[in-house]
């Protein structure tokens, strides 16, 4: 697992295109937060990061699938899988190595985003007077969202035949779980508790609860279920492709 982890991380930082793409995502995020008038914190007038936390899921929607679109697909396409799996490497370790390296890059992305936190910390009318608990729980929310998207992206890559297919499937699946059930729940055709039940299956409704500083058990169970299910099927698919 360590070998795959360090190899994937070093391959990432070796590729100027990949490093630039992270820089580009950070730039876009900061443009939304500080420059574009309709979404700028400076125009909004309140020292909070709610805009940041509502934008990050959509950045992740592209960023995380792009991180994992070559996972599995590339190694099976160019024959490296024969080399890798002739070594004492299990599909689980292979998956873990890739996932941990991807999460490290996402973690770096989030660390870099702390600049926004420090900016509003000092921009508040009374320095430091911001809702820390809300920010911590929102960061927790987007971190968990990153885990879910990672699991989904590895699953999409494990069943795809090429990188563009993996990317597209991954974006579609992530978007589906992020917003579609919540969108359908708004339709007036639903009766009884159907809208409430549908909302439960939408990641954005759970993120909204977390952004209020509330951590509910049902949210944790939903996140964990998605992570475990998609991870399980991703590993199973790698095993299947091998045999």
């Amino acid at each position: 697992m360590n070998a795959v982890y360090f190899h994937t991380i070093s391959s990432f930082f070796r590729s100027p295109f990949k490093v630039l793409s992270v820089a580009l995502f950070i730039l876009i995020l900061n443009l939304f937060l500080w420059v574009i008038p309709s979404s700028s914190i400076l125009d909004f007038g309140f020292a909070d990061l709610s805009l940041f936390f509502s934008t990050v899921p959509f950045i992740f929607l592209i960023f995380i699938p792009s991180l994992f679109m070559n996972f599995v697909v590339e190694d099976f396409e160019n024959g490296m899988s024969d080399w890798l799996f002739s070594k004492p490497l299990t599909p689980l370790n292979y998956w873990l190595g890739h996932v941990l390296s991807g999460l490290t890059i996402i973690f770096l992305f989030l660390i870099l985003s702390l600049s926004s936190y420090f900016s509003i910390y000092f921009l508040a009318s009374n320095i430091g007077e911001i809702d820390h608990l809300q920010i911590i729980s929102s960061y927790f929310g987007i971190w968990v969202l990153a885990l879910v998207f990672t699991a989904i992206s590895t699953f999409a890559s494990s069943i795809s035949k090429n990188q563009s297919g993996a990317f597209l499937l991954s974006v579609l699946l992530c978007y589906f779980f992020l917003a579609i059930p919540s969108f359908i729940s708004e339709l007036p055709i639903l009766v009884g508790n159907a809208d409430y039940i549908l909302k439960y299956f939408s990641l954005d409704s759970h993120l909204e609860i977390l952004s209020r500083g509330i951590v509910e058990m049902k949210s944790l169970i939903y996140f964990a279920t998605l992570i475990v299910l998609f991870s399980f099927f991703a590993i199973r698919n790698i095993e299947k492709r091998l045999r």
Partner: protein
Amino acid sequence: MSLSLSHISKSYDSQKILDGVDLSAKKGEVTALIGKNGAGKTTTFKIICGLISQGSGELKWNDEVVDVHSMKWKKKIGYLAEHNPLYSNLFVKEFLSLSCDLNRIPSSNKRISETIIEVGLENHQRKQIKYLSKGFKQRIGLAQAIIHNPQLLILDEPTSGLDPSQLIEIRSLIKNLSKDRVVILSSHILSEIEQICNNIYILKEGRTVKYSDENGHEAMRIIFNRPPKISWFNSIGRTEIINNHELSICLETKNSKEKIFDAAVANGIKIIEMRMENNLENAFVNSQE
């Protein structure tokens, strides 16, 4: 140390690729598996390496059945795959270091240096793989296969793309490697197989046939100036008519060649051309018919 495969079969969907492959190989010998493209050589190797599962049959290491997917088994194997997959953006040393890490070898630097010398990559160890020639890439493939001192070495076409001098070097390297491990390889160059292999298996229609060169007897092809009679040469060895002017004579004794000349002179017939028959080539062609 010995490896034996018995009745290994493998099907993809409804197509049978292997249909009862039997093979045995032991330490100190080089065993070859030959066959047409698509005969199932790579599939057999992949089964041995635990990359795919066999449909049926047994694989035994030192007479004990092995689970080819176990990590314990994979630590014993060194595998050079057919198209020699390499991370071409890595440097030679880096790739070998990754190979060590995957094989969980402690103190890898010493072992990397030893292996680099063993395969003759000293002058290229700091180069990026993508800038190396096919011959050197093949050496890297061999280096990663032997870096963890495997007991079983599987080489799928190890000499493909090598120039004649590289061929000779790699051939002697393989011979050396077989001294303390089991080596199984495949190649399309039959003369090379004859030179370095102790056991040869021919794969046809999913089954293996062990090649034997008729108790080590060599045969000669002789073209005469006029049609010869078999009876003139029968006393020398088994004789077959190839065509009107051509015979194949099995050389059963040391002075068989002299006897052929004597018989030709005695019967007033001239020898136009005389050459050794490639037994393996014939056996291979016959087996595929």
